[in-house]
């Protein structure tokens, strides 16, 4: 069983096309910039990966996550050759913060808020006439949860085409909350490095159009082979390697692949002490019998942690890496932790292919995990 990805689009601090974001990652660019939106005197961290699109720099605007979502959905549908979708087309939107930034502007600065602003149905109805919209908030695994649910909808015969998306804008509450618990604040994201100090928030949106295999007449970007979704059920914030390992194993089962079939992995790699460690331990376990094993990279050093859309962004970058035969490196990794010693981590410069099959991770707060296996368009 597989499902075809026939359209895709993304926007984040590094760029506003999938190829542009991938190219920027391969050339080692970073979207990290001085904090423009919040009063910097209230935080220890001074930078974030913001999307630089405000009309007046430094003056915040409501509904940015909604705006990006509408944009990436439009671009992904156009890319798929489906600019005027059926009104019942399911859209599964993964998001950690929904429009909580708009709620903050309402609460603290007398902005406007309607209950319907807190989900994405009305925006997608206005833009495209779509009503079958689901706002999935399974933390930072949300967009890969959406992908898993989309494959189920197609399998269960409820739809032939599904749009899966992710969107988030940086909220002051979460920026402040992470600033509280990460000290000294991270200067950048150093996934798997001994000197890593934590996660830095990013923002942006990503969308893909998924279709039942064999139904799309045009070009495809790749295929989803299988998606797992689970929960550690162990700790509210600290990830559990066993939960991530189970998610990897289940994804392989669902995709009918063996660990040796995986050419590359794009990890969650948020750069926090515990999350990177848990992921490294889980990867070591999952690929212990492989030789030489997959190449492993992470991309958050480029665009920060874009929260709900992070897993799906990993997926589109993985497909672009397969197409272009170029896998970007983990940025700012100079002194890897012992737990990744046996893994083939890509650092310093891009690795070149050919690649066929990729594994992408999303590890959300609350122990919520999802892993997807995808392959490129060429068989």
């Amino acid at each position, binding site marked *: 069983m597989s499902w075809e990805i026939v359209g895709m689009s993304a926007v984040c601090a590094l760029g506003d096309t999938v190829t542009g974001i991938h190219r920027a990652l391969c050339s080692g660019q970073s979207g990290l910039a001085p904090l423009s939106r919040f009063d910097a005197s*209230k935080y220890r961290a001074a930078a974030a990966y913001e999307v630089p699109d405000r009309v007046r720099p430094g003056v915040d605007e409501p509904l940015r996550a909604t705006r990006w979502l509408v944009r990436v959905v439009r671009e992904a549908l156009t890319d798929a050759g489906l600019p005027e979708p059926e009104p019942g087309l399911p859209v599964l939107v993964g998001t950690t913060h929904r429009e909580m930034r708009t709620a903050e502007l309402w609460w603290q600065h007398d902005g406007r*808020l309607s209950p319907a602003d*807190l989900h994405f149905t009305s925006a997608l109805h206005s833009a495209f006439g779509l009503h079958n919209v*689901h706002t999935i908030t399974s*933390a930072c695994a949300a967009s890969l949860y959406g992908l898993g649910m989309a494959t189920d909808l197609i399998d*269960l015969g409820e739809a032939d085409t599904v749009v899966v998306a992710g969107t988030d804008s940086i909220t002051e509450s979460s920026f402040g909350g992470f*600033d509280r618990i990460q000290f000294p604040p991270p200067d950048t994201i150093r996934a798997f490095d001994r000197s890593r100090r934590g996660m830095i928030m990013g923002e942006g949106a990503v969308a893909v159009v998924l279709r039942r295999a064999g139904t799309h007449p045009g070009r495809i970007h790749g295929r989803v082979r299988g998606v797992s*979704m689970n929960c*550690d*059920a162990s700790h509210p914030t600290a990830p559990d390697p066993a939960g991530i390992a189970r998610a990897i194993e289940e994804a392989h089962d669902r995709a009918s692949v063996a660990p040796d079939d995986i050419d590359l992995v794009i990890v969650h790699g948020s750069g926090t002490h515990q999350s990177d460690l848990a992921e490294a331990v889980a990867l070591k376990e999952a690929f212990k019998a492989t030789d030489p094993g997959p190449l492993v990279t992470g991309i958050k050093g480029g665009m920060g942690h874009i929260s709900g859309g992070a897993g799906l962004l990993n997926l589109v970058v993985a497909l672009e890496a397969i197409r272009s035969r170029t896998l970007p490196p983990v940025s700012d990794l100079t002194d890897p932790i012992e737990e990744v010693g046996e893994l083939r981590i890509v650092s310093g410069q891009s690795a070149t292919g050919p690649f066929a099959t990729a594994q992408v991770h999303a590890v959300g707060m609350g122990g919520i995990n999802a892993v997807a296996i995808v392959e490129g368009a060429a068989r």
Partner: protein
Amino acid sequence: MSTSAAMRTAITGVAWAVAGPDFDPATALAGRGMRHKDRSSRFAVRVAHRALEDAGLLGAPELDGAAVVVSSNFGNLDPVCDSVSTIAAGCSRDVSPMRVPHLSSAVSAAWVAIEHGIHGPNLTLCNGTSSGLDAVAAARNLIAAGRATAALVIGVEPDTPSVARLHKETAGTRWIDGAVGLVIEPVQHAVSRGARIRAEIAGYGKAADERSAVQAAGGTAVRRRLDGEPTARFGRCSGALGVVQCAMAVERLGNEAVLAVAGGGSGESDGTSVAALVLTPPRGRDI
């Protein structure tokens, strides 16, 4: 969208934890493990225990592979608003580290999973007034797709200062403060373990208008209907609405099917989409 009848699923547990004469949050939400949880998570954890108990699944081995599906629109609004107030009055160092997990909409579902060792999919939906019925349908899909042995569905909306302000600004006068829970599992599994089947989930539909949603759910001919009653009883139910509807329907289910409609014109609506769900009486052991 309509749900295929690939696998028959049933409601086998129902529980309430809603502020009122039978539930005083001041005492019922206190106690061990509650101190560092937000109001939404406290309600969710309480109702989860009661729902599993009602279904006879407390501590059962099948919980390991079960799913948690939470529906809530305002669950984390208060932690978010409260944190920005704290930062505005001082700086980020004044935010309590215990607050950080509660900034996520997903936290209530995560706490429930931790409490009962539920390792399957952990899903939170925030779809507006249709969200509760959408959550029941999502739970059914997770089971039908082989991702979950059973699902605990929770609709929760806490009454907090920011939630109250939002309701008042949008012409609300009363709103629910609490959680409602359902246990959903395959009919075959319920029968094999001798569980009491309270209702079967027969059809689900979601559309821009009520008529199309009801049609998609296969509910056009269903005479007994439930839409505005939860709102008349509790005030606005928002993300909990569909779950409250199912719980009320199960309690009064005779030998006739019941159609629940959330987000429709005659009931509570946020003007975006309408969901419809048909519940039928247990068919007995005819499988």
